[in-house]
């Protein structure tokens, strides 16, 4: 059982950056992808910023694999739906009452590029950042520590719950529960599958709460931390700069200063 995250430990300069610096880098790419007016510029964000960053972080193959696996269903759906249904005049292909239009294809390409940029930026962040360090960085900046607890614990207990779900599925099948067959049968199978999992989870909550209480979870007063995050003045400056650039991009887009 391993924690289901995308994080890949690598000895790279990118990995050693402060989590908030990585967050700023990724935020910049996302804002650029959403605000730049020209599709080609958006694609350039992927090719010239995100890919080199992934290479710098020694995670390029995983980055390419994940981002392409994620984007192709979008590309396909967008090409079909926008290609055939978006308004336009340049007909490329006529299929009975439906026509594939150039404008629709261009629109599909634009959406695909933008989705690719923000989804792959998020994936890159996860490939190079340990979730616990990201949460620590945010907690240090004032995020309630309960939120860090919730997110990290959820991440780590998922495999156990998936395992339990599988066990219940197997044992209900062994008792003759039909999980195959027609739709009504499969729907009926849902309650006996799902209810035991939920009920048993609720019944063990007191123990989980008590275990936390025994370790001072609700104690009043300041907290300390075993781990420290390295931060530097240039990184802090970079984060402020990124923030300004992001705001400028959004402002420029909203005010219509940037046009194709």
């Amino acid at each position, binding site marked *: 059982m391993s924690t289901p995250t995308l994080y890949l430990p690598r000895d790279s300069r990118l990995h050693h950056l402060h989590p908030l610096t990585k967050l700023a880098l990724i935020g910049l790419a996302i804002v650029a992808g959403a605000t730049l007016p020209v599709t080609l510029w958006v694609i350039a964000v992927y090719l010239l910023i995100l890919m080199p960053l992934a290479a710098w972080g020694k995670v390029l193959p995983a980055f390419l694999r994940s981002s392409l696996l*994620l984007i192709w269903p979008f590309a396909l759906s967008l090409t079909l739906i926008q290609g055939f249904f978006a308004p336009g005049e340049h007909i490329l292909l006529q299929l009975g009452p439906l026509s594939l239009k150039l404008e629709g294809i261009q629109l599909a390409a634009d959406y695909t590029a933008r989705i690719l940029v923000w989804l792959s930026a998020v994936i890159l962040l996860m490939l190079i950042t340990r979730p616990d360090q990201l949460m620590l960085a945010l907690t240090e900046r004032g995020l309630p520590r309960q939120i860090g607890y919730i997110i990290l614990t959820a991440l780590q207990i998922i495999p156990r*719950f998936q395992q339990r779900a599988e066990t219940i599925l197997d044992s209900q099948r062994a008792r003759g529960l039909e999980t195959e067959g027609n739709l009504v049968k499969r729907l009926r199978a849902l309650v006996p599958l799902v209810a035991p999992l939920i009920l048993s989870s609720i019944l063990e909550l007191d123990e989980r709460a008590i275990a936390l209480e025994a370790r001072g979870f609700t104690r009043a007063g300041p907290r300390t931390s075993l781990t420290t995050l390295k931060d530097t003045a240039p990184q802090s400056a970079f984060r402020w700069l990124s923030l300004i650039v992001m705001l400028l991009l959004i402002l420029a887009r909203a005010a219509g200063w940037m046009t194709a």
Partner: protein
Amino acid sequence: MDRLKREFSTLTIVLIPVAIALNIAIGTLVLNLKVPLYLDSIGTVLVGALVGPWAGAVTGFLASFVWTLTGLFPQAIAWVGVAAIIGALAGAFRSGDWWEKWWKSILAGLITGVIAAILSAPIAAYVFGGVTGSGTDALVALFRATGLDMLGANMAQGVVSDPIDKAVTFFIIWAILRALPGRLKARFSGD
């Protein structure tokens, strides 16, 4: 403020990650059962129904981040607001006796599903160009073919799929609530 404090007891704080893990474990299990449902908000609805609207909203909100962090469904953060509202609605239905009768819980689920569909449509239309990259895109194409615009087609698609999923989710949670001892339930809500 008092309501907030009451909702976020240590018991609730340990419930939320378990609920998020239930969303993900059950959501992925249901995928394999090949039923036209998601059930991927079942934990969120549980928290709303058991604790209240704030806790439900926080569960939906954070669940979206966890879906993203696992890499199973990175686009989940785009729907974070909708996920939070589903949890809040499940909690809001605690007033009145919506969770008391099985058919009322189904009705509450249908209402939640329609609201979720309406709120999801603009996100699908403007962030994702009207698609989700999944099987429901065929429905979107169908509604576009009938002459609806992208927003309308996405709304129509959502109204066809979401209410059924939420009705089943709410019904299962109704059954769970009925199976739990009353004293335990009272401890979650702090009532």
